[in-house]
């Protein structure tokens, strides 16, 4: 049949398009409905699960971490608000809130020693020491989660990665690339020398000194002139863990 040009032809093409569109919308709506239903089922099952395993979630960090992953997949954030089903049932909001408060406290009390930068491992360890009484184990994962909640409150807390370590920053000091590189080098022995920076990073001594002086001024570094080789060492408390007991009482990391 010959295609019909002209107004009539256009009209029927438009009608056809409309038809297709309606069908398309229907399909989309049905899919969305099905998905919504599925999601609702997931949520209900998740709530049942949480009810049944409430104690495990509180006491077992690995379990807790997996539970959070599950929630994330389904689009549920048990920490989204301090009220409502999740908070009431699990008290999880309280748990992380409390953790957040303790983390802030630890960061504040160690600030004069480390300049406002503390490594995650040490933070976690100090936290565990404090919570020994409550006997609820805390992992680095939990710390990170609590800190991300702190961030939402605009508290200026941030986690940065330097080399293999994660550092928690509780002061507005911004570290530039040179500073980061120094911290990375420092991770090996806890300190650097100007000579080492010059060699390892191929810097001029001026560049090394400038960066180190800034870190010193910010309270992130301490000088040490006591070695018998007479070379000045710049130590970085944030890459060490001197206040937490190391060794057998177990630092859990995720």
């Amino acid at each position, binding site marked *: 049949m010959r295609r019909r040009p002209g107004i009539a032809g256009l009209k029927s093409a438009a009608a056809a398009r409309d038809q297709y569109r309606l069908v398309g919308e229907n399909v989309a709506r049905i899919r969305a409905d099905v998905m919504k239903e599925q999601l609702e089922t997931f949520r209900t099952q998740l709530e049942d699960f949480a009810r049944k395993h409430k104690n495990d979630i509180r006491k077992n960090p690995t379990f807790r971490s997996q539970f959070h992953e599950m929630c994330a997949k389904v689009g549920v954030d048990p920490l989204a608000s301090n009220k409502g089903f999740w908070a009431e049932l699990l008290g999880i909001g309280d748990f992380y809130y409390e953790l957040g408060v303790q983390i802030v406290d630890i960061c504040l009390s160690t600030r004069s020693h480390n*300049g406002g930068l503390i490594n995650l491992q040490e933070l976690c360890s100090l936290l565990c020491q404090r919570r020994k009484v409550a006997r609820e184990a805390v992992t680095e994962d939990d710390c990170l989660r609590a800190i991300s909640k702190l961030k939402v409150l605009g508290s200026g807390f941030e986690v940065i990665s330097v080399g293999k370590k994660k550092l928690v920053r509780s002061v507005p000091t911004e570290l530039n690339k040179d500073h980061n590189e120094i911290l990375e080098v420092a991770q090996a022995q806890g300190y650097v020398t100007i000579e080492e920076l010059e060699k390892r990073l191929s810097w001029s001594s001026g560049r090394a000194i400038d960066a180190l002086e800034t870190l010193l001024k910010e309270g992130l570094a*301490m000088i040490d002139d006591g070695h018998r080789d007479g070379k000045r*060492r710049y130590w970085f408390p944030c890459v060490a863990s001197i206040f937490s007991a190391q060794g057998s009482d177990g630092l859990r990391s995720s």
Partner: protein
Amino acid sequence: MQRLGDFKLPHFFNYPPYFTLQPVRETREKQVQLWKELILDYCRSQKIFVISLEEDFPLFSNPVVERSLSHEARQVFLAALVNEGRAEWVDKSHKKCLILWLRIQDWADYILNFVKENGFEDSVMTIEDMRFGIETRGTELAGIDRGVLLRALKLLEQKGKAAIFKGASADDEGVKFSA
């Protein structure tokens, strides 16, 4: 945790930079505070009253991390204690320092309390006995520095709570307490 005898050393003692005087003000303040506390705690636990800067004082070096406080650093920390009223220079050249891990007034209060608790009002004790006798064994008074004790007793004398008297020889110095 590292120990010095039976004394538990704080963590910072094993961190080498704390043995070097820090140039940055806030860091220096923290450093001074830590050392002041350590010196007072250590002296109290070991009943040390006088520190000689020129002699080896176990707190001033840590062989584990191979660091020692310079003479200047020792001066700075002790001077900080002096400023706070927790220590006194014994000599003008600042070579010896009397550590008042309890202030003289605190000692006076302690003695008063000790007298009350043990019913020594209206009784007499020799200075020697107060320092080394059975009655004070196990209390803070055991082994107290003679000079410090006398100063504390003088304070009590001024308040009418005690009367110091001298006997025939220096060993006969004693004190009578009144209620």
